[in-house]
């Protein structure tokens, strides 16, 4: 039987997968972002404010938080689109720290049913009770998370097989050659960033409602570094790559009590080993292609 602890681990995997996918989208366009946690956080705060303080319906708040995250990502990427490599990474890191430090100062409280609720700087934002108020069990909420994750993966699966996905990978491999093809990488980098921001936002909003309490410290740079590492471990050849990374880290390293204390040592070592042995992760482009051919042949037989 699925107990609540196991369910929490599983739902955690689902939510963190969304931010891992968002980092992955930027990785395939050739940019390393240390700032996806900012969009995760923006959506967590705005989505939770919408349901808790304004009484919005969950789905609209989910869309609102994620769109806000997408818009923020669009603005940041429009400003940074002409820089790349290390400079891009530094600017995303700077932005995410700006968001985190702003949240530390951000206070917006309202009295709801005789209780003062809302974000209050470093004290965080508690009482995000939509899930409890609506009698949604942990199991149901986990299903909801996986429904959204499934929708995101399905969309990305089609995008990756479309012209847009090919352009993303072209830009990731050789921006100059992409330009020679008549394609302006700038536009597509903004599209990728908005998409990534939106998906990170979905994860953040779900996260806030799952844990009922959020504080700025959750959205620190370690979350961004982890979400990058998931893609680099799991592989950059398919959207399932980052999911493998998340399942390995949260499902295995973080949840098993014996290794829990050594998680960062094991995880850091794993990243280092993978970068040397398989620089584009376990499911890299070649392995994905071979698997796809094998699958096609198997289906034909």
């Amino acid at each position, binding site marked *: 039987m699925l107990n609540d602890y196991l369910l929490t681990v599983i739902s955690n995997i689902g939510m963190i997968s969304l931010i891992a996918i968002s980092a992955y989208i930027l990785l395939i366009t050739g940019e390393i972002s240390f700032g996806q946690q900012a969009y995760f956080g923006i959506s967590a705060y705005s989505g939770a404010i919408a349901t808790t303080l304004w009484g919005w319906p969950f789905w609209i708040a989910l869309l609102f938080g994620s769109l806000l995250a997408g818009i923020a990502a669009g603005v940041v990427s429009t400003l940074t689109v002409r820089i790349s490599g290390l400079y891009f990474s530094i600017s995303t890191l700077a932005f995410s720290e700006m968001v985190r430090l702003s949240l530390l100062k951000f206070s917006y409280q309202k009295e709801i049913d005789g209780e003062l609720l809302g974000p209050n700087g470093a004290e965080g934002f508690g009482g995000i009770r939509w899930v409890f108020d609506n009698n949604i069990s942990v199991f149901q909420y986990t299903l909801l998370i996986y429904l959204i994750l499934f929708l995101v993966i399905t969309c990305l699966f*089609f*995008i990756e*097989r*479309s*012209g*847009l996905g*090919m*352009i993303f*990978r*072209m830009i990731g*491999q*050789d921006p*100059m*050659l992409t*330009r*020679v*093809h*008549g*394609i*302006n990488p700038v*536009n597509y980098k903004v599209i990728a960033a908005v998409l990534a921001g939106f998906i990170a936002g979905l994860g953040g909003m779900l996260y806030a409602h799952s844990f009922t309490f959020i504080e700025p410290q959750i959205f620190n740079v370690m979350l961004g570094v982890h979400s990058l590492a998931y893609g680099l471990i799991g592989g950059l050849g398919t959207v399932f790559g980052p999911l493998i990374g998340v399942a390995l880290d949260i499902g295995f390293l973080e949840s098993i009590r014996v290794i829990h204390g050594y998680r960062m040592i094991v995880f850091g070592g794993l990243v280092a080993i993978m970068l040397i042995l398989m620089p*584009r992760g376990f499911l890299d*482009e*070649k392995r994905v*292609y071979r698997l796809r*051919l094998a699958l096609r042949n198997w289906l034909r037989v």
Partner: protein
Amino acid sequence: MFELRKICKSFGNLRVLKSISLKIKSDIVTGLIGPNGSGKTSLVNIMSGIYPIDSGQILLDGNDISGATSYQISRLGVFRTFQHIRIFERMTVIENVISAMISHESFSFYGFLAQVRNPEDPKVNIAHNILEIMEMENDSNLFAGDLTLPKRRRLEIARALARDPKVILLDEPAGGMTPKETESLAHLINKNVAPGRTCLVIEHKMDLIAEVCEDLCVINHGEKIAQGDPSVVFNQPEVIEAYLGKV
């Protein structure tokens, strides 16, 4: 017709192109030769919009395109290959060819999600035909990064054919090839690349130039020193001097 008028380009204090003027006639293959460092590749980089020019004018079919960026020039039907091969190494050969057929126009509301790896897509058919022409049909499922050098060069040309440009700029297409491979490349350029297109070929291998070019332009130290029929140009004293030095 591609026309360059008094193009100047400097990198710091180094004047790479010194007011060079050049006409590339339509629908024939023009050769561009010159000693190392004479500015050939810089010229192609300028024609494809990769380097901005300091002064001068670039005309394509009479329209001023000076200052246009590389993707804008590409949209006008100009495609180039690179001296140091540029292909998408983490894509298969066939995906590389298909990638050349994707344009900014595929980013229309319905078009951008059009499936590209669907086997029934007409693009896939065209790509297979092109690979057949290039005698690479057996390599279509290999990763481009795993190809040998001559095959990478062929893949670049296959991508150019897939793009089907009006103007094609080949920067040392036979670089690193054996004489036999060069010969088959010359045959390929004559048969499949050149017909109906304006072509510019930069090359050091004179047998290739003699085989494919109807017009030949020689530059040295960023200046044009001769242009005309290859057999005449080869015997001009300035050209011999540029290559062999003064007697």
